[in-house]
Every structure is written in C-alpha cells, then in structure tokens.
C-alpha cells in the first residue's frame, strides 16, 4: 500500500478484555516498530521486528503485551487482560531497512480502557 495502515483506528475495551491491534507496513519494508504514546507524552518504543524475527522486545511494559509478525509483513500487537494504564495511542512504523532510510509511521490505534 501507499503507507502504513493500522486497524482499528479506535478501540474501547472494558478492563480485563483482550485486544488485538493490526499493522500493515509498506510493502517490502523489512523493519517494523511498535511505539506506545500516552496522552501528553512522546512515543515510547515497545518492540522491533526485522522480517519475522522479533529482535527487540525490551520496551513491552509487561507480559500481557505480545507482538508477532509471522510472515514478515503484517504485525499484530496483542494486549491481554487490559488495564486502564494501557490506554494510549499505539503507533506502528516501518522502514525499508535499518540505515539511512526514513521511518514511516501509521496513523495509530487509539485504545481506551474503561
């Protein structure tokens, strides 16, 4: 596609529910990132994939957060047993390869946990 596509754009969940957020990166982009942006804050790194390999998951806040990219293209960020502090915009970004390329962000998925 022309850009990074994320769905759903908005998600309201009751505390304790599981949610899944999807990211379609730009076709051919090897590197894929997830960031979390809480209200009034800058984006914070969650995890990084190179093709299907999750090379860094150091930013995932707890074991309730899980990300996958099984075929090296679409990625899913799953949050189990959501808590109110999980409310944030989840940004996906992709890049052709590590190096001098530009990181292209999606529009984000805004999660609100009630």
């Amino acid at each position, binding site marked *: 596609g022309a850009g990074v596509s994320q769905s759903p754009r908005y998600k309201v969940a009751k505390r304790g529910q599981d949610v899944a957020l999807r990211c379609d990166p730009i076709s051919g982009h090897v590197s894929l990132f997830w960031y979390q942006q809480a209200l009034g804050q800058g984006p914070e790194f969650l995890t990084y994939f190179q093709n299907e390999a999750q090379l860094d998951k150091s930013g995932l806040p707890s074991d309730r957060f899980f990300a996958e990219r099984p075929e090296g293209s679409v990625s899913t960020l799953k949050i189990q047993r959501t808590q109110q502090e999980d409310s944030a915009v989840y940004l996906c970004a992709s890049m052709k390869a590590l190096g*001098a390329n530009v990181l292209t962000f999606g529009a*984000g998925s805004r999660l609100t946990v009630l």
Partner: protein
Amino acid sequence: AQRVTQPEKLLSVFKGAPVELKCNYSYSGSPELFWYVQYSRQRLQLLLRHISRESIKGFTADLNKGETSFHLKKPFAQEEDSAMYYCALENSGGSNYKLTFGKGTLLTVNP
C-alpha cells in the same frame, strides 16, 4: 540511560517572527538526533535529522555536543508551521533504530 528533554510544552509566536524549539539530550555515546513533526490530523513524520545537515521547510537544527542540545530554528515562522514537534534520539549507532522521544512542543503560529 538516554533522555530527551523538551522544556516547552507550548510555544506561541506571531507569523514572521523567529522561532526556536528547544531540545536537550543526555546520552553517553555519539548521538543521532531527529526532529519529527505532527500536523493536525496527520501522521507523525520526519522533519529533519542532524546527520543530513539540511534545511527542511526553512527549519534548521544544529547539534551542539558541548551543550548537549539540538534546538530547531526557523527565522520567519509561517502559520502552516503550527504543529506538534518532537525531538528524538537514536541509540544504536546511527541505524534509526529504537528512538527515544521527548514529550513534544506544540507550536502555534498566530496570524
């Protein structure tokens, strides 16, 4: 640990006035620094990176290692510059991986 500080949450200037958005960082290695911008209802996008030493939309930013700063400047602000600006630091040897962002500065350029 690396940290990026943007001391101004809000900055308001008049059209035609100079603008400077401040960014300070703490990092033990050799930093790669960026400015990202988010216009209203648009996605976060790269404005400029220090290694390119370029001017984008009239904006420039100089890395000052002595003061650990990377302030964004424009001599004559335009209304279309109104946006949220984020300073970011990359910490893996210049490979644009794992950015650390500041909290952002909302710039408003008044007519």
